[in-house]
């Protein structure tokens, strides 16, 4: 029966002469094709992303702008009708 120290030494040396693993040609080809496809798709996404993000950005600004104008218009409309009512009361006071 081997001593523990011998077994430890043998275990530590068990990687001596280890052979390098190669990818099989089929697996290598599959990985190569997938890697090429992945980078092509990412390249295309990056190329289209810039104009698309510009369009979205401009659209958002326009929507906010029109929304603000609409809100302003609706607020001004209610203020004018309040002024007209005040005018009627004023005129009737002068009448007396």
């Amino acid at each position: 029966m081997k001593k523990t120290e011998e077994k430890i030494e043998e275990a530590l040396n068990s990687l001596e002469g280890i052979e390098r693993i190669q990818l099989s040609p089929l697996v290598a080809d599959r990985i190569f094709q997938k890697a090429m496809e992945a980078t092509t798709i990412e390249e295309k996404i990056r190329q289209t992303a810039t104009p698309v993000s510009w369009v979205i950005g401009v659209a958002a600004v326009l929507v906010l702008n029109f929304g603000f104008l609409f809100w302003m218009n609706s607020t001004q409309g209610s203020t004018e009708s309040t002024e007209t009512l005040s005018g009627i009361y004023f005129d009737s006071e002068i009448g007396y």
Partner: protein
Amino acid sequence: MTESELISGLQKKDERAFNEAFKLYSSMVLNTAMGIVHDHDEAEDLVQEVMIEVLKSVNKFKGESTLKTWIYRLTISKSLDILRAKKRQKRGGLFTFVSLKNDESWMHKPDFNHPGVLLENKERAAVLFKAIDQLADNQKIAFTLHKLENRSYKEIAEIMETSISSVESLMHRAKKKLQKLLKNFYELDRK
């Protein structure tokens, strides 16, 4: 193709350059990854991930190291990401508390049979790989690069962006830790 031509070709996403890089480095990536993650299928997946990353990030490559060194670093980084993801998954398990307290749990993990190990060493190597799994990341990387990739301490220092004396220290600590783990394993085995 010289290295600068290769880098230039990769930056232009030239298929011929990528083919050349693949031939030169895929085996290196596979063996390094396998030495760290201890799983053949995951190592193959890592080859794909690393080669994609090479194409994506080659424009950021500043040439401060060789292309080979840079690819080693990518491989190590992605391999460690896999290991960390696995550890996070294990921590979520029901019996994690019990297994963390049990110092012998590593001995009962499934064997990793590296296809390149000589037949007469298979059993001993399987135990050694389990013990290597218990090393700190830096020790694991240094040990793997030295024993599996046959890198010199100087090359390892360049890959790990550290000094040769730090690599010597890492190797020394790795061996001490492995001896301790293996001693526990073989003494328990005798009982």
